[in-house]
């Protein structure tokens, strides 16, 4: 059985010789990203506590790093890199679109209720 694996990650920046080697390479990458997250989570640098688009810069960094990890788990561990573009788009685009929609609606609504609690006529501090 011939299984063709694409052995490049980071747009061809790193090329692996075999599929096994690629797996270990991706593990190293995931470990580095997780370590960065943990270190940032422990020290919480003051410099990153500014806000950007209504959220702390540090939180944006965490979310972006999480998406990076999700990409490599899906693309290399789940072999999405080797599937046909049609299958990939069916799975990835559908999920991402629906999740963004859900997040927008729920977070928007949560923020609205918070506003009612703080500036409305509700008392919660007793």
């Amino acid at each position, binding site marked *: *059985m011939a299984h063709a694996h694409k052995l490049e990650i980071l747009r061809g920046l790193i090329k692996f010789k075999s599929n096994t080697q690629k797996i270990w390479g991706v593990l190293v990458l995931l470990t580095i990203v997780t370590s960065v997250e*943990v270190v940032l*989570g422990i020290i919480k640098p003051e410099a990153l506590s500014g806000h950007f688009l209504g959220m702390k810069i540090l939180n944006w960094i965490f*979310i972006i790093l999480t998406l990076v990890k999700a990409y490599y*788990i899906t693309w290399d561990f789940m072999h999405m890199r080797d599937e046909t573009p*049609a299958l990939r788009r069916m799975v990835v685009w559908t999920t991402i679109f*629906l999740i963004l929609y859900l997040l927008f609606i*729920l977070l928007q609504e949560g923020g609205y209720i918070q506003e009612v609690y703080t500036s409305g006529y509700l008392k919660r501090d007793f």
Partner: protein
Amino acid sequence: MLLMGTTVVNTGTEGKTWGGGNQPLKASYGKMMMWFFIVSDALTFSGFLAAYGFSRFKFIETWPIADEVFTHVPFLHGQELPMIYVAFMTFILIMSSVTMVLAVDAGHHLNKGKVTIYMFLTIIGGLIFVGSQAWEWATFIKGDFGAIQTKGGNILQFVDNNGHRVALRDFVVAGPHERERLDRNEGVWFMSEGTLPTYTVEEVVSGLESHENILVRTQDINEHGHKTILSREESLKQIKLNGKHVVEGANLHVNEYGSPLFADFFFFITGFHGFHVFSGVIINIIIFFNVILGTYEKRKSYEMVEKVGLYWHFVDLVWVFVFTFFYLV
């Protein structure tokens, strides 16, 4: 094409794209169905995490700070080590994902021995993860410092002059209690209650009065991102005026770390994820035995390992998000 003559009706699409027998996605039925299951399960988890975000945005000014909640590591009692244990759990799960993908790779080479070893390591990794999660739950449920819940449902915690947390047991003396826990065999058969707190609110008040250095910390987050600490007078006033219950640990109703919703979502989301890991381990064990028995050797295809692998990686994928939204952000 009417070679067979007679009653066979042809559609005229034989050999064309929609004539059947085509695999446009170049993936087997089973693998595709696993992918579509994963899509729907991903949406379920996103629903939970988005609901968590909703509740958090609702109480953004008083939400518990995860770093202060999950500070325990087994065998290192009494030390505050935020993130370390959960980072270990994350690493274990990523590691077991790696052994799984190595098993899939060995399966492509029809290497039964290697598939067996890697499947075994994957199962061990899964078990360590589920065990760690059980420990995390137990620690969370048991609690550490104890707190007072007000009439409005807010949580008041205790700190010393330097802002370090102080446990109830360090300054409150439990007196003789008249109330006994109501159990089913004590009264009416359908009436019972949970474990009673070690202390009463009055005992906490007198403990606070006799310890000059102890202050009350509210759930409000100030502009520096820390919880607000009240002055000594304000602390006594708050506890005396509003203190209603003593809370030790967390369950679905009360939570000494802050908003009960935090505990509810913690139990629900990590519980649902833990259930996925558990069922993943069970499925992995079944496949492991099939590998040993040579089922896939006879089939000349280890695709079952690949399908189970997809599920296992998905469980890892979900944990990456749970880790971010529960422990980091």
